[in-house]
């Protein structure tokens, strides 16, 4: 393979991976904006989404796409329940208590996953994994293409939901000034519940979409949280555009480092990159404050 083909191949890999990071991060940034909460359990909804798709697709025999479509509302509901049980009761009780509560929820979910899906890692097998396209020497599976398209479509859908619909605008208003939102008649308590459900559903969708590309284990939740943090740090907190930028940057960085330097050392390189960015620009590479 020539160098230019290799570069193209890493771009394709990086962009498809990045699209899922984008989806993971827009949910993260949404809950952070509306709830003013660092949700440590965010990555665990991603892990749960992947396992649910596995269970619906293989154990219940529904097939891949119906499983994804079912996993999205399921993670939404679980997110809403988590909010009612572990986050809402701590509203207004300081910043640390709710964050610690989400940490407990994260490990609770991981422990439950270990019990429900014990033993080895799980693999989601789809027919799209066996179809490979080749273009100018660059090859990718149909699954990668579908994952990319679906992740992009969901992100675009969220963007239009936030920009155009009444509930979307109420979510943005709550993010920008919670008191003012309440004063114009927005039930900000309901918005917090809805935002956590929605962010969990987006993370669950990301997990379900990337599931066929990698092995699933309970530990992927924490890694996903870390990646969501990295994306937000790269693209700036609170904006969808920032999450899109950050997600693709992280995907490309991982693909290129893995392809040209050393795949095993990629996580180490990502950590180093983060520390450098933080030191140089504490608010993130393209830092802004409000949710757009």
């Amino acid at each position, binding site marked *: 393979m020539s160098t230019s083909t290799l570069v193209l191949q890493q771009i394709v890999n990086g962009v498809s991976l990045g699209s899922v990071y984008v989806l993971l991060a827009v949910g993260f940034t949404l809950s952070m904006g509306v709830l003013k909460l660092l949700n440590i359990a965010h990555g665990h909804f991603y892990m749960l989404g992947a396992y649910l798709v596995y269970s619906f697709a293989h154990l219940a025999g529904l097939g891949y796409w119906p499983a994804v479509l079912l996993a999205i509302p399921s993670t939404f509901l679980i997110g809403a329940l988590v909010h009612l049980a572990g986050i809402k009761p701590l509203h207004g009780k300081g910043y640390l208590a709710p964050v610690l509560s989400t940490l407990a929820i994260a490990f609770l979910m991981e422990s439950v996953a270990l019990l429900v899906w014990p033993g080895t890692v799980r693999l989601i097998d789809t027919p799209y994994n066996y179809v490979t396209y080749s273009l100018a020497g660059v090859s990718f599976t149909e699954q990668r293409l579908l994952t990319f398209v679906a992740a992009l479509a969901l992100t675009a859908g969220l963007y239009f939901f936030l920009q155009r619909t*009444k509930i979307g*605008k*109420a979510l*943005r*208003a709550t993010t*920008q*000034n919670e*008191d*003012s*939102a*309440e*004063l*114009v*008649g*927005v*039930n*900000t*308590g309901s918005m917090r519940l809805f935002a956590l459900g929605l962010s969990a559903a987006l993370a669950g969708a990301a997990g379900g979409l990337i599931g066929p590309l990698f092995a699933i284990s309970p530990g992927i939740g924490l890694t996903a949280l870390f990646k969501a943090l990295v994306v937000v740090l790269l693209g700036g907190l609170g904006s969808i555009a920032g999450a899109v930028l950050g997600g693709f940057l992280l995907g490309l960085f991982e693909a290129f480092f893995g392809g040209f330097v050393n795949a095993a050392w990629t996580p180490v390189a990502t950590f180093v990159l983060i520390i450098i960015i933080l030191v140089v620009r504490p608010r993130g590479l393209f830092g802004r404050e*409000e*949710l*757009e």
Partner: protein
Amino acid sequence: MLEIKDLYVYYGPMCALRRIKISVAEGEVVAVIGANGAGKTTLMKTISGLLEPDRGSIEFMGREIGGMSGHSIANLGIIHIPEGRGVFPEMTVLENLEMGAYIFKDEAVTRQTIEQVYELFPVLENRRRQKAGTLSGGEQQMLAIGRGLMGRPKLLLLDEPSQGLSPLLVKNLAQTIEVLHKEHGLNILLVEQNVKMALEMADRGYVLQSGEVILEDSASALLENEVVREAYLGV
């Protein structure tokens, strides 16, 4: 229409408001004046539901609203324009106005109300596509009032509307409030540190000091009152 009786509000162990008795009758502009930290903002936030009263009653049009949530109180027709304006900075001027009509479903009426707000504040129409955070202080104040009017209030709570405005803008603001009251028949409860402006506009006034009402009279009588003149007008 608004009747507050024996109201107490605590911040933790600290008593922010005590024995408050304030009323606003139909057709009135009422001013609450007092120094920084007297409890004016606490009073407004308690009426609009951002804070919960610890004791006492707040009745609005015959209905007890003390302790109700902010959005429920907004639905009843009390619109609070908070101190520091509280616009949605990343939303456009038009989106801010639309958010003001959040509780209404009828789009046609909302369009109509927007036109009325533009008539009152033409600069908002020129800047309708601009993000609210990029407006000047005076423009943000107009937007905050405009957004409040979008909620078609029965009672408008204005918290320090003159704060940070130039003397000329304060004069314009006073005229606007006058128009809202006389032409649109709005009932207004106003808290202000700008005592002169507030009392010149109001029918009646209350003086709030360290969380208590120490004086209550017609606005014209308060302007002549020795205590008010010495403590707040510097005469």
